[in-house]
């Protein structure tokens, strides 16, 4: 397979006007403006093969959206090179624009006062789709996303979830090979999020499309992306297998036990596993994989168990640790351990 997305040493900096609050500062800024250079993305490098589904993660302000916008050709990089689908994005060659799509959960292309069907007609014309092909793709997408009864209502009368589904139809009408999805499930309810994930996976499998997804919902990432790229303050923190990262950062599995009756805390500590959380009706243990069978046996023998499940630690926890922003207050050895764990997981995955 060849790299569909090839990013080498990518950087983007902005010149930002800084001004203190107040009237005097406002007056002062009329005569003298203070600008600062803000580095949104710093020497980022990664490659994504055709057909991959990759989660692109980072805290707010990490540079995810800026990177996506550079990959989509909306922003010109300050340094470095980007190739997407064999094109240089910022040239915005029509062939490139026909090969990609960028779905932004907070920006829409649907015409607000007209039904989505009008946006679809416009996009079919703009993308120069043969009539039969365009209509067939639209029909298929409309059926997959179950929006047949919505596309003739004015967009402004649709709910957020309905709009997002209709937005996806508009974004995929030209059957792009590369999908940049920026928070595609933002604001959607749980069932709608699940439908969107199912659809994105189906589209990826059906057309072999490459997907690069940002989301603050870790469920989106765990459900869709075998690989993740994590950035913080514009720099690469981790690039590799999602499960490998979890195992490296949190080697213990999570043993969740629903209790039939209340259990005293001292009975739990005797079991030799770490108690992560304890309530009247539930207790969560952190258990090393090699001790899992033994611990389960002990739990079943010594506690009033109503139900029991074993899972990986939640991705949110891992991300929280990776995203620790306040490095000044963080213990150096802890920072080194986090970085080392991420490096080890990434290295293990690549080797």
């Amino acid at each position: 397979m060849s790299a569909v997305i090839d990013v080498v040493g990518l950087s983007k900096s902005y010149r930002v006007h800084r001004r203190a609050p107040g009237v005097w500062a406002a007056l002062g800024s009329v005569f003298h403006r203070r600008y600062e250079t803000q580095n949104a993305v710093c020497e980022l490098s990664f490659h994504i093969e055709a057909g991959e589904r990759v989660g692109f993660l980072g805290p707010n302000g990490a540079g995810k959206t800026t990177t996506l916008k550079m990959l989509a050709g909306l922003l010109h990089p300050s340094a470095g090179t980007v190739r997407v689908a064999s094109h240089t994005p910022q040239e915005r060659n029509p062939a490139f624009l026909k090969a990609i799509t960028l779905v932004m959960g907070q920006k829409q292309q649907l015409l607000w006062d007209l039904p989505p069907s009008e946006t679809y007609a416009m996009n079919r014309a703009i993308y120069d789709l043969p009539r039969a092909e365009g209509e067939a793709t639209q029909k298929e997408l409309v059926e997959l996303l179950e929006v047949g009864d919505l596309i003739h209502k004015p967009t402004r009368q649709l709910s957020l979830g309905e709009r997002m589904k209709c937005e996806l139809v508009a974004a995929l009408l030209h059957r792009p090979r590369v999908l940049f999805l920026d928070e595609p499930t933002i604001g959607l309810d749980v069932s709608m999020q699940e439908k969107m994930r199912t659809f994105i996976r189906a589209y990826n499998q059906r057309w072999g499309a490459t997907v690069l997804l940002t989301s603050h919902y870790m469920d989106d990432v765990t459900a869709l992306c075998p690989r993740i790229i994590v950035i913080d303050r514009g720099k690469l923190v981790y690039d590799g297998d999602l499960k490998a990262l979890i195992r490296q950062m949190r080697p213990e599995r999570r043993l969740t036990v629903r209790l039939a009756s209340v259990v005293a805390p001292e009975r739990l500590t005797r079991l030799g596993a770490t108690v992560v959380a304890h309530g009247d009706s539930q207790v969560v243990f952190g258990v090393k994989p090699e001790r899992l069978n033994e611990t389960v046996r002990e739990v079943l023998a010594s506690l009033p168990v109503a139900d029991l499940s074993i899972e990986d630690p939640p991705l949110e926890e891992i991300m929280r640790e990776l995203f620790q922003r306040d490095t000044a207050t963080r213990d150096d050895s802890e920072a080194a351990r986090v970085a080392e764990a991420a490096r080890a997981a990434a290295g293990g995955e690549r080797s």
Partner: protein
Amino acid sequence: MRALRQALRAYPTLLRVGFAEVVAYRAEFVVWILTTNMPFVMLAIWHAVAADGAVGRFDQSRFVAYYLGAWVVRLVTSTWVVWEMSMDIRNGSLAPRLLRPLHVLLSYSAEHLAAVPMRFLVVSPVVVLLLVSARQHLTLGEPGFLLVFLLSLVGAWMLIFFSMVLMGALAFYLESSLGLFELWLGLHAILSGYLVPLERLPGWVAHLAAYLPFRSMLAFPVETLVGLETLPRAVHDLGIQWLWVVGTALVALTVWNRGVRRFVAFGG
């Protein structure tokens, strides 16, 4: 070239969708037309002034022809794409437009051209009034004048459109380009003949107007329509108008192309 052919194929659909949008905003559209009433105010004033006798080449009926013509030309040729562009650039809504394989200015032009048929519909009663009340001044019966007038309408629309694009594209460089647009509106009102026929302005102002593009935006088509121009003079002025169109278009496209590189796509 291939991109241009593709754009031309897409254009009728863009116009159709643009027209559907205009119809969706019909109430707002009619209100906007009602706010364009300054020519009627000026007509009332000059009509009273000319009651005691002609003012230069203007008697009462020519003032009627001039201001009704100015109203029609203004409504048919005006476009306010600067508002949309400035907003799109500042809040990042330009991003979805930039992602389409069609030049953004072509899509703006289609949206704004699509409003022209609706405007024709709205101005048609005033056109009838113009034909009835000031027929003797109108030159449309002569094919030469008719051709120059129609081409001057196209030229005026394009000149205004590219002027708006130029000011809108300045939003890539300035925090807001709308202040500049307000200044432009003031200059346009005086130097385009919208408020007062240019030949009724003080000599030095009329002289200044001859060297600026505003006359080509309004006064020239109106003067051609109401018989204030000879045919050779009108053809000459048509050439000047189209030079302004080409010049403004080149500058606007240059500013746009450079500005897009600075686009920061905020808000999303």
